[in-house]
């Protein structure tokens, strides 16, 4: 039980390594192993989710090195929440990929598990440099996954995606080392403590480092003006990979939440006004532009990719509003949008496949086979994303709107969120009516394989998760409320991580430096 926290990282790493060794084994064996690992991850995520108390995060010191000296894994409510979401998504995506997508490229399953390892590590680690390492793990796996099946569009999109993110990684390193240079620590809890007591001559440097980090995480979260890499990369990625990618922008959001509430949460003199001045306008602009992009999309996959950006904009709007109600809304919306976007990416793949050569282009094409179930699935995804009651999107947006307090902010947020919701609804209706109703006469000649049972199961799992968010809205919002309260008051987190060592043993860094 004490080693529970390291399992979400070790399990996919071991399974992936084993899959690499067994690469000559039949694909069926790889699928079983991969599915088994995903199911195991879900069980572990549920165990961690149940174990974490609101007032006591779980801490695991790797190699038993105590907190500020070694690297610690920390699972507070937020980490547990993200782990569970990742595990659900992984299981559905692996199940979906096992129905045929994994035959298009070698090493699909090991790469997939390496990416999950990176995601879990990023959510669990309590060390800023370690966060960088896990970012790199998930990114290198995602580059390779985005390339599965190759083709010109994929190469081109991945080239841009990789170049932007590699440049961002270098900036991340600069920001992390700048923080280390000022504070002499990389442990997030310790950083929070040191930044709260920073000397006045270092405040400017600390702000610079914080804004650099915000910029890097904004690239991952695809905020305006740093989102241009996302639509082609996500739209051209294989469907199960795109479904998993829907949590990748959320890693950026997770990191922004950690940055603003924990590391710069100390609130001491002028250290940080990171969120109020920058984040809110940028998030709102992102939301508007992404919705416009979704309206103008030529392909259903591109539309879904733009909706991913729009969801990041909505979540960060809530994060920027600040306060525990808004953070709680952000977390609820995060869970909702991750599941809904994954549903949409999978439906897009199924729709595109049954249209033969037209794929998912938004032009009149041949009539669909199995139009009714596919249409209903698309209706579900689109209505949930637009926030039609009683979907989870409706509750999420309601919570975001409800959390605004002061006048001008409320006016801006209400206007933008409501208008973009209507526009999203129009965009989804347009896409749905073109794909399902505006059909040309000659029926499709190609014998496209109908969706298989496994693919429907994966879809049903994600859609069921989205429905559960509605049915159990009360306990889930209670959970997110408690999580938000924990995030707003990081002293419990800091005390638990640093433990009894904090007095005496830790020498302040500046003595060494000067």
């Amino acid at each position, binding site marked *: 039980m004490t080693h529970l926290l390291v399992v979400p990282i070790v399990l996919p790493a071991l399974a992936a390594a084993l899959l690499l060794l067994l690469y000559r084994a039949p694909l069926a064996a790889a699928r079983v192993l991969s599915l088994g690992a995903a199911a195991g991850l879900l069980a572990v995520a549920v165990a961690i989710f149940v174990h974490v108390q609101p007032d006591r995060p779980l801490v695991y010191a790797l190699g038993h090195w105590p907190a500020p000296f070694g690297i610690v894994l920390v699972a507070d409510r937020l980490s547990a929440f993200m782990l569970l979401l990742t595990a659900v998504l992984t299981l559905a995506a692996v199940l979906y990929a096992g129905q045929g997508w994994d035959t298009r490229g070698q090493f699909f399953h090991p790469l997939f598990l390496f990416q999950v390892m990176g995601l879990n590590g990023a959510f669990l680690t309590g060390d800023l*440099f370690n966060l960088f390492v896990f970012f790199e793990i998930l990114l290198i796996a995602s580059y390779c996954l985005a390339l599965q099946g190759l083709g010109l569009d994929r190469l081109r999109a991945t080239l841009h995606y990789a170049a932007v993110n*590699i440049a961002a*990684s270098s900036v991340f*390193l600069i920001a*992390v080392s700048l923080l280390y*240079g000022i504070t002499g620590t990389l442990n997030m809890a310790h950083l929070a403590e040191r930044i709260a007591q920073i000397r006045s001559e270092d405040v400017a440097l600390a702000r610079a480092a914080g804004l650099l980090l915000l910029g890097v995480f904004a690239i991952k979260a695809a905020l305006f003006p740093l989102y241009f890499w996302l639509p082609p990369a996500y739209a051209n990625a294989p469907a199960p990979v795109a479904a998993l990618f829907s949590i990748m922008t959320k890693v950026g959001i997770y990191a922004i939440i950690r940055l603003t509430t924990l590391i710069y949460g100390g609130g001491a003199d002028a250290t940080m006004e990171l969120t109020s001045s920058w984040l809110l306008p940028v998030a709102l602009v992102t939301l508007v532009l992404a919705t416009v992009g979704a309206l103008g999309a030529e392909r259903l996959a591109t539309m879904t990719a733009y909706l991913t950006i729009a969801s990041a904009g909505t979540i960060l709007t809530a994060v920027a509003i600040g306060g525990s109600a808004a953070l709680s809304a952000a977390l609820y919306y995060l869970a909702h949008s991750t599941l809904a976007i994954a549903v949409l990416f999978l439906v897009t793949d199924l729709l595109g496949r049954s249209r033969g050569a037209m794929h998912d282009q938004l032009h009149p094409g041949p009539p669909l086979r199995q139009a009714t179930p596919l249409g209903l699935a698309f209706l579900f995804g689109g209505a949930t994303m637009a926030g039609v009651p009683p979907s989870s999107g409706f509750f999420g947006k309601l919570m975001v709107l409800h959390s605004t307090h002061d006048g001008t902010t409320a006016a801006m947020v209400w206007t933008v969120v409501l208008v973009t919701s209507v526009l999203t609804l129009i965009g989804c209706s347009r896409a749905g009516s073109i794909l399902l109703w505006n059909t040309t006469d000659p029926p499709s000649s190609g014998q496209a394989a109908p969706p298989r049972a496994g693919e429907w199961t994966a879809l049903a799992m994600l859609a069921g998760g989205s429905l559960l968010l509605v049915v159990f809205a009360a306990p889930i919002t209670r959970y997110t409320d408690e999580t938000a309260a924990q995030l707003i008051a990081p002293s419990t987190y800091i005390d638990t991580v640093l433990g009894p060592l904090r007095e005496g043993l830790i020498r302040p860094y500046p003595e060494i430096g000067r």
Partner: protein
Amino acid sequence: MEMMLAIGLGTITACAVYLLLRGRMFPVALGLSLLASAANLFIFLMGRLRPGAAPIIAPETSIYADPVPQALVLTAIVIGFGMTGFIMALAVRTRSETGSDHADGREPVPDRNEVDEP
């Protein structure tokens, strides 16, 4: 010494940004690896300059080098090298599939007023 290093780092970073903004993959890849080098040097310098000092803390020593940035820079070099290798392979593959090393995967349509550089 500090000033010289700071100016040098600034120059490297400026060159890297210039190269990153080019339209061809080769300069972009060079820019990425230059930027990674600049970041690595920056990490190293954040441990402060302590020429001749060992990274060992003993009761009688008052001057020592900080070993943590050295460990960090080692990790960063390895990751940066791997990423540069990956983007190079990707660029070569794109070049061979599209016949163009432009970052967009196709040659830009030449404008009447400006001649594209070779």
